[in-house]
């Protein structure tokens, strides 16, 4: 099971690279490059069309969040946590709020727990839609990106009427959520979900049954199943390898135990399998939103009483809270020291392992034209690597 690591460390089968031999060429892919997800770069060493080595370079988006959080009171941290990860910000809010609630011993009202689950699933759909557009775009299927961005906009409209903002919602705060759902939200949400389903049927036809897409993705970028644990791979990347890793099932949080769903599993563990797992997981999320809207309580408080936030002190303690975001396990490790400020907050984003160690391991041997697609297929978001 875990023999992979020792083997990797012991034998490196690749010959040493002599750059002065004239056989190799060093190329930078990124940060200013259309074929890169977000603002990061890969230093490629190529021999002809084949990439022999890839080193990832991150840090272009480093804002020092973990330092800034230490300077802010518990309630002042709340508006900046969502900025950690741009395309799916709600997970930061949830993980931070859940960690603070656990350390401070705050109970969350039932209705708030349902609304939180709803927001997280909506965010997951957004993130998957962005991914599908990016993955298709990496192969020149630009129209998929147009469709998915369009339906993502519809979902952002739902976010906007619920929270007042398109991207950074700042809705899940320690103790509950800011408000309930607006009038008529269910009806408009149902329409949006139908529209997304229609688009997904088109996407399946045009993208997943496309001969070019199949040829370029089948058997490319395979993650061997025994590397999943060695590299700490989580989420769809692990599920595409046939492992039912899903924090929603393994460590049920919020109202997931009351919802009916099964983790989506693929088998081939290549780029196609990963795209397919995400597509089917998106449909699961649509189903979950329907279940939530049908069963959630419509009245009751959405916030529990917080202590005076100006004097709010949390006793010394540490905890780790995780959730399943669209890319894998997202977690916050929070340490408090009894003062009004957090001692240390560490953000564990799934991209941290996927885009660094795993990508560097997968790149050697690929064709140079597949590097961008491979990177997209791991679904990495640089801001959560460097924070």
């Amino acid at each position, binding site marked *: 099971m875990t023999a992979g690591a020792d083997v990797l460390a012991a034998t490196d089968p690749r010959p040493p690279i002599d750059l*002065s031999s*004239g056989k190799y060429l*060093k190329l930078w892919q990124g*940060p*200013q*490059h*259309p074929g890169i997800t*977000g*603002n990061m770069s890969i230093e490629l060493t190529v021999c002809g069309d084949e990439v022999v080595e890839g080193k990832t370079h991150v*840090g*272009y*988006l*480093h*804002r*020092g969040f973990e*330092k*800034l959080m230490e*300077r802010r009171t518990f309630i002042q941290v709340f*508006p*900046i946590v969502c*900025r950690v990860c*741009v*395309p799916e910000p709600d997970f930061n809010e949830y993980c931070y709020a859940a960690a603070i609630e656990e350390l401070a011993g705050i109970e969350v009202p039932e209705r708030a727990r349902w609304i939180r689950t709803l927001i997280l699933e909506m965010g997951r759909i957004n993130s998957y839609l*962005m991914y599908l*557009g990016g993955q298709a775009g990496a192969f020149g299927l630009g129209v998929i*990106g*147009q469709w998915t*961005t*369009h339906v*993502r*906009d519809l979902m952002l409209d739902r976010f906007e009427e619920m929270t007042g903002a*398109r*991207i*950074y919602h700042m809705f899940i705060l320690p103790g509950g959520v800011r408000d309930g759902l607006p009038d008529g939200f269910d009806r408009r949400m149902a329409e949006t979900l139908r529209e997304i389903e229609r688009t997904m049927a088109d996407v399946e036809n045009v993208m997943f049954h496309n001969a070019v897409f199949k040829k370029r993705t089948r058997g490319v970028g395979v993650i061997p199943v025994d590397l999943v644990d060695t590299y700490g791979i989580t989420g769809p990347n692990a599920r595409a390898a046939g492992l039912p890793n899903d924090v929603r099932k393994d460590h049920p949080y919020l109202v997931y135990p009351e919802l009916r769903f099964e983790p989506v599993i693929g088998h081939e563990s290549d780029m196609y399998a990963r795209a397919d797992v995400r597509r089917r997981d998106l449909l699961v999320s649509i189903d979950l939103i329907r279940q939530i809207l049908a069963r959630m309580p419509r009245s009751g408080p959405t916030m529990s009483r917080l202590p005076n936030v100006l004097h709010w002190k949390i006793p010394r303690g540490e905890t780790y809270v995780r959730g399943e975001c669209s890319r894998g396990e997202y977690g916050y490790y929070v340490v408090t020291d009894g003062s009004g400020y957090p001692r240390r907050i560490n953000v564990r984003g799934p991209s941290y392992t996927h885009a660094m160690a795993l990508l560097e391991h997968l790149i050697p041997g690929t064709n140079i034209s597949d590097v961008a697609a491979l990177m997209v297929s791991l679904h990495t978001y640089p*801001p959560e690597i460097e924070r």
Partner: protein
Amino acid sequence: MRDEDMNERRIGVRDELRKRIVKGPDGIEFEVDPISDYYCDARPEVRPGAYAGIVESLFNWARSESLWILGFGTGCGAIEMRPLMTPRFDAYRYGIQWRPTPRQANLFVVSGYLSVKTLKRVIRSYEQMQNPKYVVGLGSCTINGGMYWDSYNTIKKLDQYLPVDVYIAGCMPRPEALLAGFEELKRIIRAGKAEGANLYAENFDWYKANQKRVIHDWDMPDYNW
């Protein structure tokens, strides 16, 4: 930890930028000094409008109607650029489109906070763009630091480092705000006031001094043309 190891790192040049002997494919050895050999270090020049009056304003109108944005998402604002490319907001109808390389672009949208590491790349990309070129600062964090006012790694005032034509406030600005900002930029260009490239050339030493004050490991030529 403020020891010689840190100092060495500060002064040290990256391996690929060191002087070295290279053997060509035909077997001849020659010395390469990447910093002076790979780049032309000519300073930028001020180029005022070549024609008078009506011709120049015709040119300005043409320039304003084809804003080609460099596809470099430097921060979170880049996520609101994507909807602009779709039919709902459709920036293409205003002559705005995205280009993959600086050589084809004339508008740099600095989409959000700039860490020092990105600032270095932004300066390089900006200097590689053709004249006339424009810069739009997007988001509160380019104006005064925004959320990251006390961060040790992000710049607070973009116009210290690059000549900015328009700022779009917000965290983050909506696509409609971006469209309004681009309209504003067009008005400035048509009025002949978008002289960012000339401003940069005129105050080149001031901009360079500001840039070098925050970028401690400056290992590139002064002007990356």
